[in-house]
């Protein structure tokens, strides 16, 4: 059981690393939001499930699963709220033409 938990923890860490790379490297706010909301949630869920597998059947495992369930609901909803607000306030999505002129800053502008 501990070996399976280790595997879950490493896969979760991989997803968290991918989310961080996406947060740094993707060109505009919307693509960064997509990286954070999906990869980060998946990474945290897998890591917490790996910890629960290490612990075995106990109240701690139940609480870890509760945390995972709450984060799976709350994290995408929060990022969606943020993205909708950004779209309503006029942050433009990245396109290839605009991206080649100003890489990394497109869709920005200090609001």
């Amino acid at each position, binding site marked *: 059981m501990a070996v399976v938990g280790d595997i879950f923890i490493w896969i979760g860490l991989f997803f968290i690393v991918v989310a*961080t790379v996406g*947060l740094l490297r993707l060109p505009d706010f919307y693509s960064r939001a997509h990286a*954070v909301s999906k990869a980060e949630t998946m990474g945290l869920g897998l890591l917490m499930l790996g910890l629960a597998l290490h612990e075995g059947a106990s109240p701690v495992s139940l609480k870890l699963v509760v945390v995972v369930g709450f984060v799976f609901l709350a994290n995408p909803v929060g990022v969606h709220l943020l993205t909708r607000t950004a779209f309503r306030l006029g942050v433009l999505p990245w396109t290839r033409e605009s991206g080649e002129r100003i890489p990394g800053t497109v869709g920005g502008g200090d*609001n």
Partner: protein
Amino acid sequence: MTVFVAAAVVIVVMSTISLYRVAAGSSVFDRVLAAGAIGTNAIALLALTGFIFERPDMFVDLAIAYGLLNFIGTVAITKYLEREGEQ
């Protein structure tokens, strides 16, 4: 035990790298997004700390509380930004 410490180190490094987006990130939404990502990393880091020091029963409760506060903080900042933008 070793895998917990290694995972905690990786998460601390990733959170530190995410601070670049909080400091430099081209719009206020990027900053809020990166801060939320760091908060999500902190949930995992709290749970891992509990397992490293062999007291997961206490630290898991802290992780639950931190998750709730993280979500509420993001929603509060979002609503503030929306109201400011409409004026």
